[in-house]
């Protein structure tokens, strides 16, 4: 599964990455613009959620309707997201429309109209999304969880905070666009079927001009409460739990991924077996690893009816706690083959590869080949994973529950 990486840096510092995929007819691209939730000024939480809608309400020569019609006319599937570091502007489409799509995205990024009357609509939609989160406790519990767990500003919800969104004015948002939509801090990636030389020439023309200062450094502040309960008269208690883990930049990255896979990778994993199969406590239970640049966490979600909530959280915590005692050879083998399969299946999706290479470049300063990842996974052993867990023994947990009943927690 040898994959090739294309790379070019524009004069203004914008990084262009590409991964060609033989035999596909699609192309997918991503712009990582340094306008994520942690990059926003104090008191502006959610501004990026407003901006992601506002910039598509007219850009360059086109008004809102003309722009959306032009994008839709290309059969383009947009995916826009706000993460900790970035506003991600991505799309997947039929490869022959790639060049036309890049012209439109250059307008959106460099020449958004940012009209005041359109701003209010974007802001209202963002406010409604935050209010609507109350009707989706599964999602809300994880949003609250990261907010408590990561030090400010890394845990800020991309979706925003109601007070900040209520107070946001067009000039505030426009200033953020001007300051953060900086080519020098932007990463562009493309995967699938494309001509890299042509893409680079086009991008050089579309994004010519000087870049700004690149990315500012962020200093972490303090984290939130260790246990937060949000009362909600629902059918279930929704439980979110998270603890610290080595980040992607650590030597232990592959070991910790194998460990999380043992905990919650497949249906034979420990959480599924102990919580669902043996005790019938939950339908949905699972843990995942997620990493920022210098911090990472292993988080777990479970939803259960109120009378089973205490037992559920006790079993989950026990499984986290006993992981450091070590894993078996069988568990290791299953984790490895599961991770390898995911990797290869991802390599068949242009969208997955476009976002994969961009996030690698941002987090590590380089893109790992699939072969490199495979080799590093291969050399993990029962010994290395057990050592990793002993070095990083889970001690402190952050817990959030949403539902009709609180639970006993330390």
């Amino acid at each position, binding site marked *: 599964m040898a994959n090739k990486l294309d790379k070019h840096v524009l004069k203004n510092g914008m990084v262009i990455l590409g991964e060609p995929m033989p035999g596909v007819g699609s192309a997918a691209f991503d712009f990582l613009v340094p306008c994520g939730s942690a990059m926003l000024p104090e008191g502006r939480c959610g501004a990026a959620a407003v901006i992601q809608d506002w910039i598509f309400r007219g850009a360059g020569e086109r008004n809102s309707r003309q722009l959306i019609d032009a994008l839709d006319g290309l059969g383009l599937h947009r995916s826009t997201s706000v993460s900790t570091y970035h506003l991600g502007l991505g799309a997947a489409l039929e490869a022959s429309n790639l060049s036309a799509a890049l012209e439109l995205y250059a307008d959106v990024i460099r020449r958004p109209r940012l009209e005041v009357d359109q701003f209010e609509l974007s802001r209202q939609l963002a406010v409604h999304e935050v209010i*609507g989160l109350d009707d989706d406790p599964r999602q809300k519990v994880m949003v609250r969880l990261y907010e408590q767990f990561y030090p400010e500003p890394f845990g800020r919800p991309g979706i925003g905070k109601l007070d900040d969104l209520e107070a946001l004015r067009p000039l505030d948002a426009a200033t953020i666009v001007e300051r953060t939509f900086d080519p020098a801090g932007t990463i562009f990636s493309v995967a699938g079927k494309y001509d890299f030389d042509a893409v680079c020439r086009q991008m050089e023309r579309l994004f010519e001009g000087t870049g700004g200062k690149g990315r500012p450094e962020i200093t972490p502040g303090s984290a939130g409460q260790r246990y937060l309960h949000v009362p909600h008269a629902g059918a279930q208690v929704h439980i979110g739990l998270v603890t610290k883990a080595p980040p992607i930049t650590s030597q232990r990255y592959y070991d910790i991924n194998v460990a999380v896979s043992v905990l919650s990778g497949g249906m034979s994993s420990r959480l599924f077996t102990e919580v669902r199969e043996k005790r019938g406590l939950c339908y949905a239970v699972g843990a995942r690893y997620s990493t920022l640049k210098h911090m990472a966490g292993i988080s777990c979600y479970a939803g259960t009816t109120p009378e089973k909530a205490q037992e559920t959280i006790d079993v989950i915590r026990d499984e986290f706690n006993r992981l450091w005692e070590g894993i078996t050879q069988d568990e290791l083998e299953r984790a490895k083959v599961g991770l390898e399969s995911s990797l290869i299946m991802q390599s068949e999706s242009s969208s997955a590869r476009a976002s994969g290479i961009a996030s690698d470049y941002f987090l590590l300063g380089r893109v790992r080949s699939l072969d490199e990842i495979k080799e590093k996974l291969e050399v993990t052993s029962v010994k290395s994973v057990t050592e990793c867990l002993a070095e990083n023994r889970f001690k402190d947990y952050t817990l959030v529950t949403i539902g009709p009943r609180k639970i006993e927690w330390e």
Partner: protein
Amino acid sequence: MHPHREGIMEFRKTTLSNGMAIVGEINPAAQSAAVGFFVRTGSRDETPQINGVSHFLEHMLFKGNDRLSALEVNEAFDRTGAKFNAFTSEENTVYYAAVLPRFLAEVTELWTELLRPALRQSDFDMEKNVILEEIAMYKDTPHFDVMDKCRALHFGDHPCGASVLGTNESIIGLTSEAMRGYFDLRYSPNNIVAACCGNLDFEATCELIERQCGDWKATEAARPLSYFGGTFQKHREERANLVREHICMMSAGMGMQDQRRFAMSLLATIVGDDTGSLYFWELVDPAIAETAVMQAEAMDGVGAMYSYIRCSPKDAPRAGEIVRHIFEDLASTGITQAELETARNKVLSALTIKSEQPMGRLVNLGFNWVYSREYRSVADDIASIRAITVDDVNSLIGEFDLRSFTSYSIAPEDAAAAT
């Protein structure tokens, strides 16, 4: 639009003597392979007393057969690194796995073993808890709940109104004997299609399936088909724990066997795609609703158009008026050529992207065989979508009148005070 890899994809089929059909779309260039067993059974094939049994049975298959325990099943799957799961709808129960080619035989064999499950009483009792938790989870997911409620209201006494999950009462009352009886009748080889896609050896796969399933006895797993356009009733329910109003609307559609379903899906894209559609411009762009989408669902001999809208309770009456206005306009003036072209581009590119992975092809391949005993390549689907004209869509609007719809909303209590 180029149907990629076309030319090297090869369609193969065979039928075992007991009636089990096996279809394959082989693509030696793929990095992975996918296999699925499509059982033509779901909540529409249940009686009210055993409502939810199809879905519960789907869970029970993972509990193993006479040879394998639940834990051994899970370990066996995980040893192959498979991305595997199952889903149950109103009319299908599908078991599938995507794997690296070297594990395809192992995973296929495992599914064939599980399709003759032990249905142990202890597993049944334990899994009942999990099903009840799943029902509770969806109660806390109003956008799912409102669709389920609306479907029941829309289909009335027609079997397609039966809930997939069942109710607390029907699940608590269900016995393992009743499940066994349902299994014996519905999991007949002539009611199952095996489908495989991607990088695989079709002959070897067929030999394996024949060795494993060849001696299964066929039963009369019938399904009476009847068309139904809907009850067109309206209902609104208030709940204390909500902040938004969740609205579902359903109108008549056509079945999977009707080739006009492609035109129907273009119509749904024109009306309710998440960007650039009529709903988008009239409801989402002006911030009246944060979500407003429409989908066409073609089922066995029957179909429906669904809309889902989420907004503040105070905007709900206005949103309803706007939707009725959109439907009136469509009925009187129809769609435009430009709207059709945009929708066509969207649908074609989604099809291309999805078809690039064997897993993306598997569901199409399997369902085309389940419903119509027909193979349709990506190129066939593209050709069908390309051929659709404005007149085709407008005549559908005339025949399946969007203005006649069932609607169900769930809203916060004291909505007048809420914002």
